[in-house]
């Protein structure tokens, strides 16, 4: 049963991350998720200092605020200071992460925070954190409920926003010329990425979140010719990575999050080699 819950929560989070990640990859902003997962540290420390507790909710709020701030700063440096997008991502998150570290070291006496523990959840503990109703009925792991709610939100956003996301990702200038609110779509996407990152790494760990954001969509990108199948395949690869990763971890008796990220990478390699072979086959008739 534990295995089932771990695979289920892994899959739910993989799909949420992957669907948003597909748009990030196409916008050439794949590392935004990585940036957010680091940049939220000062938010978590400040939330702890103000609330004085290690409750999840204030920390999530602190992290979410910093997540959105991160995307705003990245955009600001990119548009106003005319930096390259990758440079502006790099500056923003190292700076915010450093502030977080300073905050921890300055308030070290008062802050009983282990950043690894606060920042990085571990998917292996998912089945331990159960959710009970007032009358004591076991509803299953809390993470699964959170991840399912998150996925529902993301699916709603992507379903209704598919045209807005498509046109602003493919050709922002043209979208602007049509009079569409380009900034709204940018921040709606970035806000969703921020929320997803923060909610997910609390339960499955930062590395796995970043891996799920980038690797399944990048894999799907290699072998699809339009956006819809790319999103479906992304979800499918996310599921396969969770499933395969869990069994790999059991087999080698190692880290589950690590194994899931590894399997996602292995799928990417396999698909890449497959697409190379296919390309070669396809090009033979032209050469002859």
């Amino acid at each position, binding site marked *: 049963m534990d295995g089932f819950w771990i695979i289920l929560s892994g899959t739910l989070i993989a799909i949420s991350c992957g669907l948003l990640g597909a748009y990030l990859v196409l916008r050439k902003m794949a590392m935004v998720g990585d940036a957010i997962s680091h940049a939220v540290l000062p938010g978590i420390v400040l939330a702890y200092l103000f609330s004085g507790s290690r409750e999840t909710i204030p920390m999530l709020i602190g992290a979410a605020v910093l997540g959105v701030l991160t995307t705003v700063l990245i955009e600001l440096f990119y548009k106003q200071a005319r930096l390259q997008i990758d440079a502006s991502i790099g500056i923003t998150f190292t700076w915010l992460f450093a502030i977080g570290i300073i905050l921890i070291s300055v308030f070290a006496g008062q802050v009983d925070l282990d950043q690894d523990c606060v920042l990085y959840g571990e998917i292996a503990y998912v089945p331990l954190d159960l959710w009970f109703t007032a009358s004591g009925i076991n509803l299953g792991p809390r993470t699964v409920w959170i991840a399912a709610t998150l996925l529902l939100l993301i699916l709603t956003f992507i379903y209704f926003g598919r045209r807005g996301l498509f046109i602003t990702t*493919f050709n922002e200038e*043209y979208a*602007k010329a049509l009079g569409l609110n380009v900034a709204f779509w940018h921040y709606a996407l970035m806000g969703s990425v921020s929320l997803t990152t923060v909610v997910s790494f609390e339960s499955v760990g930062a590395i796995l979140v970043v891996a799920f954001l980038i690797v399944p969509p990048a894999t799907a990108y290699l072998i699809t*010719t339009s956006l819809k199948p790319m999103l479906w395949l992304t979800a499918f690869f996310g599921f396969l990575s969770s499933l395969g990763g869990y069994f790999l971890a059991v087999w080698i008796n190692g880290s589950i999050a690590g194994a899931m990220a590894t399997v996602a990478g292995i799928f990417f390699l396999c698909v890449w080699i497959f697409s190379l072979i296919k390309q070669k086959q396809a090009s033979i008739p032209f050469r002859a």
Partner: protein
Amino acid sequence: MNDKTAIEAHNLTVSYNRRPVLWNVDFELPAGQVIGIIGPNGSGKTTLLKAIMDLVKKSSGYVKLFEQDLEEVRERISYVPQRESVDWDFPASVMDVVLMGRYRKNKLLKRLSKADRDLAAEALEKVNMLEYSNRQISQLSGGQQQRVFIARSLAQGADLYIMDEPFVGVDAATEEAIMLLMQEMKKEGKTVVVVHHDLQTAKLYFDWIVLLNTRLVASGPKDQIFNEALLQEAYGGKLNVLSKVGELIKEKDFPVREK
């Protein structure tokens, strides 16, 4: 509604990092004509189009379209960006891209109608690309990509079309097709404004010419514009044999620069 003037620019100045790219540009362009905006590299042609479409910040001045602000007449204006400005490896089909021409601000969340799809198909037909509807855009040649961009614009059903370098990097057949299409649009009473860099063909393609080199050099019917003095002023000393050789080399180099 007075539709004699398609575009009026007054005192238009645009700068990047305090360096003016357009300086005090002032003109009125007539409606129902095919208009070419000509000038050497870096003369602000693309910036002028972006200023018209409100895509760059103006340092001063204003632009009126059909004597109104852009926001009030947006439905009547269509913009064709430079082909190189997007990633053609994007996972999308030709039809997906052309349908964008039917996206509207207040019905973006709603499903596209059958009428929208018909208009998109009709637009593809006009550029002879209907049979490529389902093809992925990465499999298109440069000329086909340009036709898709123009079809997307046609699908908008606008009155004024603003095209940025539609003739760059396209094959001869596409160039011919675009030219014929522009003439057809003119017959339907549409206005077409095109950024173009080739002086030789400019005289053939356009009725009205705007000569630009950061400042406005001249704007008028082509017969008045094509004289040595004005061209010399726009192109400076560059209009000699050597610069033509340079142009030729650049043309040859184009496929290499493209990737």
